[in-house]
């Protein structure tokens, strides 16, 4: 998604004075509220929101590439799935902490993303071609996973229950434990997104997104900027995949690598606003809410939520090209104007 006027146009040497933006303040407030939410009572929907938060984190990871760089990756299921399989395999087969598995997943995902992007940049695979290119990688992994005995073929990998498991095993006797882990992950992903956005790399990406030839001509190393961004984005996405597999205690090729997973990840970010810190969280919360509400009131029609989602995306493209968060941007502008930003 392209937006106007929210980011600096060119790389600069001088760092602008940092001040907490409205986005960050709202972000902290929302996360604090989310962390405290389960204390207020009903645990009924805790599981749903745990997953929603994991996906908020995953989408934030996607947005590092999909929002900040102007690339449109449509294959983030690749990294999500790698994270999922790595954490499941390390725990189930080697009896090591799934946290370690998550780190392994991050490294593999980042390495793959790096390789993919190096090739893509080298051979000028851009725009819609890049979307299809990334999608193809995810499909290859899906097929690979469903044919490898080591990964349990189409049955996938089960994450076993452990007797007297603790946080080190990512298993909690109290479901609020995992919920808090999800809050933490979403927060981490948003912080990383924000750090990238405000770093020199972020300015370079914004220049590339605005006009790549001009950026390259003014000395931005396009190849390095994009490969680093994709690697980081992949690593952040892999964490979410790992947490998801541990949470549902199971991973299979479709849950990990299906095209619909890639789409889901991208859509949450786009829905909320892919260039905004809060975008993926907003998008994820909105999507989960829609799913829940339609299931509650239209449970005879289980696909109603997808219909609403599809229509919402179409409407968004027409009237709110910056996502739900676009509304926030307008507020932010009013805020910035008052405090005369640098």
């Amino acid at each position, binding site marked *: *998604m*392209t937006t106007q006027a929210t980011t600096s146009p060119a790389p600069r040497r001088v760092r602008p004075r940092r001040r907490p933006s409205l986005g960050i303040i709202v972000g902290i407030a929302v996360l604090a509220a989310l962390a405290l939410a389960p204390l207020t009572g009903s645990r009924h929907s805790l599981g749903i929101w745990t997953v929603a938060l994991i996906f908020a984190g995953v989408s934030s990871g996607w947005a590092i590439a999909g929002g900040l760089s102007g690339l*449109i990756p449509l294959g983030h299921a690749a990294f999500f799935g790698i994270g999922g399989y790595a954490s499941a395999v390390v725990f189930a087969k080697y009896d090591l902490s799934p946290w370690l598995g998550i780190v392994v997943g991050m490294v593999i995902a980042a390495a793959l993303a790096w390789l993919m992007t190096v*090739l*893509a940049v*080298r*051979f*000028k*695979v851009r725009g*819609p*071609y890049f*979307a*299809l*290119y990334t*999608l*193809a*990688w995810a*499909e*290859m992994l899906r*097929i*690979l996973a*469903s*044919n490898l005995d080591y990964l349990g073929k189409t049955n996938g990998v089960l994450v076993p229950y452990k007797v007297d498991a603790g946080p080190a095993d990512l298993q909690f006797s109290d479901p609020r434990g995992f919920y808090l882990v999800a809050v933490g992950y979403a927060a981490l992903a948003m912080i990383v997104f924000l750090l990238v956005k405000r770093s020199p790399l972020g300015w370079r990406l914004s220049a590339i997104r605005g006009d790549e030839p001009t950026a390259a001509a003014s000395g931005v190393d396009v190849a390095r900027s994009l490969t680093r961004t994709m690697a980081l984005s992949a690593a952040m996405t892999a964490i979410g995949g790992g947490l998801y597999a541990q949470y549902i205690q199971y991973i299979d090729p479709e849950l990990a690598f299906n*095209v619909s997973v890639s*789409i889901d990840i991208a*859509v949450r970010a*786009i829905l909320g606003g892919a260039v905004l810190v809060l975008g993926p969280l907003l998008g994820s919360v909105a999507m989960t809410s829609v799913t829940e509400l339609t299931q509650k009131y239209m449970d005879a*029609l*289980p*696909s*109603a*939520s*997808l*219909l609403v*989602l*599809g*229509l*919402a*995306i*179409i409407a*968004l*493209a*027409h009237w709110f*090209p910056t996502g739900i968060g676009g509304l926030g941007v307008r507020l932010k502008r009013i805020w910035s104007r008052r405090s005369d930003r640098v």
Partner: protein
Amino acid sequence: MDWRLVLQSVIGGLFNGSLYGVAAVGLALVFGVAKIVNLAHGAFILLGMYLVYVLHDWTSLDPFLLAFAAILGGLAVGWLVQRGLLARLMATGQDGPLLVTLGLWIAIEAVCAMVFGSNPKTVESSLSDATFSIGPANFYWSRLVVLALAVAFTVGLHWLLQHTDLGRGIRAVSQDTTAAQLMGLSVGGLLAATMALGAAAAFFAGALSATLVPITPGAATNLLLMSFVAAVLGGLGNIKGAFVGGVLIGVVEGVGSLFLPGTMKVFIVFLVFIGFLLFRPEGLRRRA
């Protein structure tokens, strides 16, 4: 190596490939003219499948006959989508159109799931059981009919683009929109015609595959992915190339199945796809 098996796989791949080809033709046309990747293409394929299912249920006519009705359905849907949802966004030159096609994909699949449920539906042609043999290998007649219809559709579309005013207009818009406008061509109308023809190809591909696969809301995904691959192989925007690309993928898949277990043949297809994206993004077509 077993000769019968080789024949079976290669010619079987050719038959499948014609289906990928006809689906890819629509995608390539829309990309070539409107410069957008139509993510809703798979949803159009799905609509073609269900349309044939419904019409068959209603009229009991042979599904291959109904495939022609599906073309009309595709023309109407494509035209409406372009006029109603895409035209305004294309003018802005951002990612809007891509998003709209994504939303359509999700929404149409959801509608199909709501209306038809997730139980597979099947459509039987009167030809469904008849077979013929080439040497030692046996094939269903229906596969040959699919191949013939797919080729006929592609040839017809190609003829339309080459030898009618509509086709010349569409090609003019794809090559230089402003110049076309200055020559008195209605760009909006031609883009709508393009989308209509693209959707017609998708509907037709869906209609043809309705007799071959069980119809479920997710049934078109494979065909969608294969048509992406085929369209890129053919050089996105090139009709003939897209069809040849589709046939090629079918054959690669067929040959792959000789050496690789299960679904690994598709792995080879994607490997080829990535190779093409990297080394020959312009596709099979020779270019200076």
